[in-house]
């Protein structure tokens, strides 16, 4: 009886220590989170008071932007088309290059380990370098215009798509693939009749999502000389043509929203 009571008392003491430890750990985590947030505020030199005192400057720009200058709408059609086509070009190039790389970079179907590491390296490198840097790099090679923008998006998309494609292939159900292998089908037949139909809807969905992302990126690339509506927006801002800027922002809004809705609708159909 006495031994049992002592044992229960020891267990209770351990439980108290455990609870105290858990509370201390939570407090430490909360304190750590607050410290991280404070250092971020210091590093970005956050000055909310400047934002408040300068709000009339922003209001002035908005006032000068109104109403949008719709007389220049015709001039926005070609740059808008360029922006969409740069994204389309980049996505198509990205998909074409990403598919074979993803097959090599998927651990469950890769030809061999050397090919796996080379493919993973290429995918990692193209993804790590931002599309803006790729654009500056290609501008030095082929000059200003939409072409370097398309190339930049294409190369960067290889990295983004390659990784997602490879993960999709790695997570696919391998049972149908093994079943096909046992029928005597060759590797290429197993790929086209087993792997492709299994992962194709996912790959198309990812590609459409990438196209949607690339349209946004294509706008930004225009600021570094890759043409399109981004370049026109930069020019209008530099010339203080704020009514044209507001028209261009409306066009950008329509393009981005349309791309997003169309991409989402197509992805839903594929699901």
């Amino acid at each position, binding site marked *: 009886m006495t031994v049992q009571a002592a044992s229960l008392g020891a267990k209770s003491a351990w439980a108290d220590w455990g609870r105290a430890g858990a509370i201390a750990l939570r407090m430490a985590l909360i304190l750590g989170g607050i410290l991280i947030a404070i250092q971020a505020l210091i590093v970005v030199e956050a000055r909310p008071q400047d934002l408040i005192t300068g709000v009339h400057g922003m209001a002035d720009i908005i006032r000068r932007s109104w109403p949008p200058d719709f007389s220049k709408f015709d001039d926005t059609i070609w740059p808008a088309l360029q922006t969409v086509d740069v994204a389309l070009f980049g996505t198509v190039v990205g998909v074409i290059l990403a598919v074979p790389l993803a097959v090599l970079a998927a651990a469950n179907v890769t030809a061999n380990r050397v090919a796996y590491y080379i493919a993973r390296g290429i995918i990692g490198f193209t993804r790590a370098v931002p599309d803006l840097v790729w654009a500056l790099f290609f501008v030095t090679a082929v000059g200003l215009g939409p072409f370097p923008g398309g190339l930049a998006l294409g190369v960067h998309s290889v990295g983004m798509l390659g990784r997602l494609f490879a993960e999709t292939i790695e997570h696919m*159900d391998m049972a149908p693939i093994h079943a*096909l292998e*046992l*029928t*005597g089908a*060759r590797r*290429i037949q197993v790929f086209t*009749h087993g792997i492709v*139909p*299994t992962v194709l809807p996912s790959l198309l969905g990812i590609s459409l999502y990438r196209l949607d992302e690339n349209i946004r990126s294509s706008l930004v690339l225009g600021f570094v000389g890759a043409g399109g509506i981004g370049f026109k927006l930069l020019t209008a801002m530099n010339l203080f043509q704020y009514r044209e800027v507001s028209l261009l922002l409306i066009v950008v809004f329509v393009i981005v929203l349309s791309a997003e809705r169309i991409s989402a609708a197509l992805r839903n159909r594929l699901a």
Partner: protein
Amino acid sequence: MLRVRSLSMRYPNGKLALSDFDLTVEAGELVVVLGGNGSGKTTLLRCITRTLRPISGEIWLGEANLAELEGDRLRRARMKLALISQHASLVRRSSVATNVATGSLGRHFNLWTALGGLPASELQAAQGYLDDVGLADLAGQRAGTLSGGQAQRVAIARALAQRPDVLLADEPVASLDPEAAQEIMRLLRRLAQSEKLAVLAVLHQVELAYTFADRVIGIRDGRMAFDTPRADLSREAVQRLYVGEAA
């Protein structure tokens, strides 16, 4: 006909999974393998398909000894051997007829089939195989929409499209309800007789073995415990296979 002689298999951890295993399955015969978990049933099938490499023994499929073949010669010889598993393993987004016709891919290697096409003749033949398994009206349906029993029958039709001499079935009814399980076993028995197939099925359901098998093989600790016609199968011999499993 399938003949296995002195087949042994050892896992990388040193455990002997199969030891000097012999079995024969004649054309038109349905042989059921019974045994507890970890007794070596699935290992036996995986060695026969050469998914696992045995350490010794022979696996005769007609005139070819699968145990000594590699690469393309193994692939070609193995085409006479079809396997259905517990899960139907169909390409869910492809149609039922397409899934069935892919069973014939080993016989048709050309640019069209390499690019994802299927021979029109095989797609037409798929209708016949689906008719054999009672699913002719589902040919155009997506495989992912089928019930478990229907999917398993499509897997059998795909195996038939392979035109095998031997059909291996690894717990083909394990995930089916009792009625669907009976249907699949009835189908396997009928196909064994009508197509002159040698059928070797691993089962956990002893009653199905009593009902459908021509012969029953018992396996325990990787060794053959008995090989007997169904009529001579004793309940005691079957019970001995599972002794100690519950513990």
